[in-house]
């Protein structure tokens, strides 16, 4: 097995150490972890904490940008691997170094490594001034990250968050951005978000193509039941997984939150409720090919907040075929401007429902249909 390598970069004071500490709280599925630090942090990761987590720590004491990391680094990595035989190595590089240099240094090593998380922590409140004034190394940390954790958002007005978000997206349009208060975040969820390999859009798309699982034809047709118990290995494409913690809030088939039956697709037990089911084609396999050929999907991420009213209006408007194309399915989670909980919505061929759910890292919207007018959709859903 190759050793997972996680790189958590970010400027001094952004919250790298806080984030890493949070990740350690998850226990990393009992993997053997070594942390390599190339920075003298504000919050030391102290010995007792590490002992509890069973983590080894290795400092590369250059700590000064006049000394180059690279020579030291290769030797340290080899040493760490032979001494501890870790399954995962977390690297906290110097806050004033380029992320691409670290990535290159890792890739160049003749060791069995697999780059796992390549994240940069950006202080949401400082993003703009840092970008303007720090120049290359900071912008490199932003542009070369696979995922950006915007920290300290709890201290900021939503406009400031949106502004910082847009600056980040300008430098790195393809990265995922998660917005979070690092002190309050659920560590498990954070780790899952950082390791996320399948995008929300792919997920919703798969769900759509496979024919959403969820519906039960009144008892007589057991075989199409939504909530499959089968094939553990395929859980990425199923819409009704129980075990996929990452997306548990927007899955269609929760067995466990009974209080919200109305827009949920897959209850086995309340047969009287057909009308709100989300999944009208029972035969996912057949539609699969058609779906691939005809349907397109568009996905957006947004830090913006929406009121219930706004969202309702957007979903109402989405029905206008002449402006938006034929929208068959839309799904999303959005930060709410009128409540602490987030809005979770489902739109199926003109019908929609909005419920409230747990706060997430960033708002996401996926729209699937045919002849979609993407520009108009973007303008509508992103309130442009």
């Amino acid at each position, binding site marked *: 097995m190759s050793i997972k390598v996680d790189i958590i970069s970010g400027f*001094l004071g952004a919250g790298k150490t806080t984030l890493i500490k949070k990740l350690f709280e998850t226990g990393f599925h009992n993997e053997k972890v070594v942390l390599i630090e190339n920075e003298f942090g504000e919050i030391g990761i102290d010995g007792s904490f590490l002992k509890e987590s069973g983590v080894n720590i290795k400092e590369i004491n250059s700590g000064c940008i*006049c000394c180059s990391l690279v020579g030291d680094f290769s030797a340290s990595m080899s040493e760490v691997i032979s001494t501890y035989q870790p399954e995962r190595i977390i690297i906290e590089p110097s806050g004033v170094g380029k992320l691409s240099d670290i990535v290159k240094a890792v890739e160049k090593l003749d060791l069995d490594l697999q780059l796992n998380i390549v994240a940069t922590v950006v202080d949401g409140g400082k993003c703009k*001034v840092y970008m303007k004034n720090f120049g290359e190394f900071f912008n490199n940390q932003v542009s070369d990250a696979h995922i950006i954790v915007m920290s300290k958002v709890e201290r900021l007005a939503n406009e400031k968050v949106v502004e910082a978000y847009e600056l980040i997206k300008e430098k790195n349009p393809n990265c995922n951005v998660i917005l979070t208060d690092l002190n309050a975040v659920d560590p498990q969820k954070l780790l899952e978000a950082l390791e996320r390999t399948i995008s929300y859009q792919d997920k919703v798309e798969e769900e759509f193509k496979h024919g959403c699982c969820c519906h039960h034809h009144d008892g007589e047709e057991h075989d199409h039941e939504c909530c499959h118990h089968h094939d553990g290995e395929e859980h990425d494409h199923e819409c009704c997984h129980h075990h996929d913690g990452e997306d548990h809030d927007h899955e269609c088939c929760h067995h466990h939150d009974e209080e919200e039956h109305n827009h949920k697709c897959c209850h086995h037990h309340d047969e009287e409720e057909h009308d709100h089911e989300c999944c009208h084609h029972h035969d996912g396999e057949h539609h699969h090919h058609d779906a691939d050929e005809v349907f397109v999907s568009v996905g957006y991420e947004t830090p913006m907040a929406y009121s219930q009213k706004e969202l309702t209006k957007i979903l109402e408007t989405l029905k206008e075929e002449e402006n938006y194309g034929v929208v068959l399915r839309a799904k999303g989670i959005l930060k709410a401007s009128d409540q602490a909980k987030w809005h979770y919505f489902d739109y199926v061929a003109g019908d929609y429902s909005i419920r409230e759910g747990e706060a997430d890292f960033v708002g996401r919207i996926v729209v699937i249909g045919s002849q979609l007018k993407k520009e108009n959709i973007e303008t509508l859903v992103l309130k442009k």
Partner: protein
Amino acid sequence: MMEIPIFIVAGFLDAGKTTFIIDALEKDGFEKKGRTLVILCEEGELELSDEFAHLHNTTIKRLQQQDQFTAEYLQELAVTYCPDRVIIELNCMWNINELYFPAEYRMAQVITFIDFSTFSVYYNNMRQKFIDLIKLSDLVVFNRCDDSTALASYQTNLKLVNGNAQYMIMDENGVAQKAFEEPLPYDIDADIIEIADDDFGRWYIDTYDNPERYRGKKVAFNCMVVQSKKLPKNTFVAGRHAMTCCADDVQLYGHLCKVLPGMKLKNKAWVRVVARLEFEYSEEYQEEEGVLYPESIENIPPLAHPILDLR
């Protein structure tokens, strides 16, 4: 032609550079003493507005990249605006060692601002940046320092980096605190002042800051003999190498010491010196320099930590 004085205001984002410039323009009555040109190389939280500048007979120029900051550009500004002074707010990531000024300008003062609340983390991770700035500074201002004892541990290092700079410490409310008040780690009133190995730097700095404390007094310490043909006859440097930034940055610090008649010393040998410290005018440095008159010099084994690590 009159030389144009330049004031460089340096330091990290948020350290108080712009506040200082605004204060200077407002309170120092610069506008009555002619025209000021401010070159802003950073866009911080606080912005200097053009309206404010206009009121104070000031022109603002903004630069984004260090490569725009050329001698030619400054020359052009001198011709265009005929300023009586130029204030430059330096970008914290620019290399201060690579700024070039045309002959019309004269460096009046370099002031570095440091936000104490982020100092230890920034300093530990970007030491070279700080050292570059401090080395060239006439004045170093620590802002937002509510606990000046926390700063005291850095004093030897800072003084070694630049002993000529003035260090000012301001608290949260902008009130000046007494700089560097850490008590001396040795007994200044002893018949022979005994300097522990780790305190060499502290002592060395203090002999420059407070020569009166040591004039004519006896001190004892361990050091390295450093001989050179450039030194006056029959003297060597009784010194220690110290590292203020990293391994590339090791320098020798020490006082001139007379040789003992008849005693042969080897270059780079370790010795224990007991000597009377005097201060004498040096033609070369044009100021008083410490000179050690030894009572005894004894060979000793090399120290376990030969290089003073002052980081």
